């Protein structure tokens, strides 16, 4: 049986194939289907059917933000592009799948990659406070089923 205990530690994130460092959290999507009530006179309980296609929901990434960082600037430029065809985004989440190696050597991590495609819907920069890290939240609405590889 596959091991189910996994930590988020050492998860990697790529936006449009470019690695994004200093990620604080990655909020994954919720897949839902609309329900249609189909109760009829012979039903003994309220009946619902779930519809197609499913809604793959949204994801969001919270990461450290530096206004001078070229990677951060690239994401902004991408999102603010006037050409709608240029704004289909890809975000990849590399989740640690297994570790090999024996201490005292550091372990080698192999990853499972989950690729999300969709439209970035917002870039929200954090409030600036003296003792808080400057962060940015990138939200993306998914247009397709995430692909695992």
């Amino acid at each position: 049986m596959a091991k189910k205990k996994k930590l988020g530690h050492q998860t990697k994130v790529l936006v449009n194939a470019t690695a994004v460092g200093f990620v604080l959290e990655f909020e994954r999507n919720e897949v839902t289907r609309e329900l249609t009530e189909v109760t009829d006179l012979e039903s003994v309980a309220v009946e619902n059917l779930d519809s197609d296609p499913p809604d793959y929901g949204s994801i969001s990434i919270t990461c450290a933000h530096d206004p001078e960082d070229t990677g951060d600037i690239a994401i902004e430029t991408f999102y603010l592009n006037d050409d709608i065809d240029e704004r289909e985004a890809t975000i990849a989440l590399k989740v640690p799948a297994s570790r090999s190696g024996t201490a005292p050597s550091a372990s080698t991590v192999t990853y499972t990659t989950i690729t999300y495609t969709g439209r970035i819907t917002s870039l929200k920069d954090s409030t600036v406070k003296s003792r808080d890290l400057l962060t940015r939240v990138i939200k993306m609405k998914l247009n397709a089923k995430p692909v695992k590889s």
Partner: protein
Amino acid sequence: MTTSLLPIEIATRLKLVTAITDRVGSRVHYQELPQSSTYPHIWFTRTGVDNEPFLGGETGITDESFSLEIVSDTDESTLLDSVIETLENLDGNVGDGVVFMTQVEDQSDDYFFESDDGDADYRHALRITITHDGEM
């Protein structure tokens, strides 16, 4: 002994200030208190390190805390002011890392002094928190 560069940085910066060395000379001690040391002296130790790593494993913003004592046989208000001012201005590049800010506060009244012999007439303790990028 910590591998952090900050204890060396703190001692170095204090010893560059004339108003401080006029009173303590080279008696700025980290962790160990030499038996031959005389008053006034400055003694400090690292009391904690706090950082939360990023998702990918990178070191997060790090808070390093220090406790610093000034012990003497006479009033050292001027020395205290110089120490506070010097440490509050501790920021910028240290080794491969960057110090963002240093906060200096008084320790609480129930603080237990470690570097005095019980006979000192003047004692003052500071709590120092240095916030840096975790790269040093």
